[in-house]
């Protein structure tokens, strides 16, 4: 009886769509319970829960994705919606256009070149190299870039999330050590290097830093989309 119900449900989209939302809610509850500790990232927790469920039930990823694709589809429209926070902060963009443009170019290039250069040094290549290229870009755009340059979207997404969590943890101590005290510079750097997770962290620390982080994230999404194919070609 129960095996019948299971085999019926596990082959349809409903169960996996439901579990995706459920796992995210659990991840979010843990994140809130830890006082929004950057280590307890709700997305990483949700991925861990779902990965464990799939591995223990022997369900393959394609079956899971049949259900999860409804959530996945919204990445495109959500990327378009990033125009709203960008426009809301357009006054900031106008006032500090030059420092922003220079910092954006430096941050985007250093993120890509250092990742690919170090990866080559450690003997990494192939799929990993392609997936590393867009690691500092917000996940929906990074996945789009990966599809463009022939990288695996799933591996890209994992590297993007780990980059964001890493950035969220190190940004405050690192910039304190470098004695960068301007909130706009601190926030912008967090958004350029660590996308949405860095932006969430910046918002926790300071309002202005959060606004600049959001701009940094949106601008880097555009710049890295343009530069990624060229930079990757240098290392392949």
């Amino acid at each position, binding site marked *: 009886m129960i095996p019948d119900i299971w085999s019926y449900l596990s082959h349809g989209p409903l169960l996996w769509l439901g579990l995706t939302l459920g796992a995210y809610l659990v991840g979010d509850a843990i994140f809130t319970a830890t006082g929004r500790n950057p280590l307890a990232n709700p997305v990483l927790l949700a991925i861990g829960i779902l990965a464990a469920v799939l591995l223990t039930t022997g369900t393959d990823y394609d079956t899971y994705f049949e259900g999860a694709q409804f*959530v996945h589809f919204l990445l495109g429209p959500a990327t*378009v919606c990033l125009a709203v926070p960008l426009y809301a902060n357009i006054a900031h963009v106008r006032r500090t256009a030059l420092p922003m443009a220079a910092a954006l170019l430096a941050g985007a290039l250093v993120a890509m070149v250092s990742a690919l250069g170090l990866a080559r040094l450690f003997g990494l290549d192939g799929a990993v190299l392609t997936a590393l290229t867009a*690691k500092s870009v917000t996940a929906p755009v990074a996945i789009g870039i990966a599809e463009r340059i022939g990288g695996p979207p799933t591996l890209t997404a994992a590297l993007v999330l780990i980059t964001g969590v890493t950035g969220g943890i190190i940004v405050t101590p690192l910039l304190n050590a470098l004695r*960068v005290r301007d909130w706009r510079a601190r926030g912008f750097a967090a958004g350029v290097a660590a996308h*949405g997770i860095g932006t969430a962290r910046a918002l926790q620390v300071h309002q202005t830093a959060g606004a600049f982080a959001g701009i940094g994230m949106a601008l880097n999404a555009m710049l890295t*989309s343009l530069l990624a194919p060229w930079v990757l070609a240098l290392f392949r």
Partner: protein
Amino acid sequence: MIRHLFLILCYQLAGEAISQGLGLPLPGPVLGMALLTASFLAMPRLYTRIEGTARGVLAHLSLLFVPVGVGVIRYLDLLQREGLAIALVLLASTALAIAAAALVFVWVLRLTGGQEQLR
């Protein structure tokens, strides 16, 4: 609400069509974002209309990464073999990118005579 979603999908469609048609390196949705930002600049009224719906979509942005992130189970062998090297690359590269962006921002700000904002 439906009207706003329709409009957002139209921008994405336009972005995809232009990007595919011209063979641009920009993913369609990114071009859609750029087009929508340009439209806001030309028609601020459009912004006040769409803002609520767009912020609703963005409020749960991180949920949308979960399905593709779960795909990491396909790469468990790879992560077992190369996980440490990948982790080191990500840590070093993220630190370098944060430092570069922040230092260049402050440096150009001083160069162009801008005031630092410390509060």
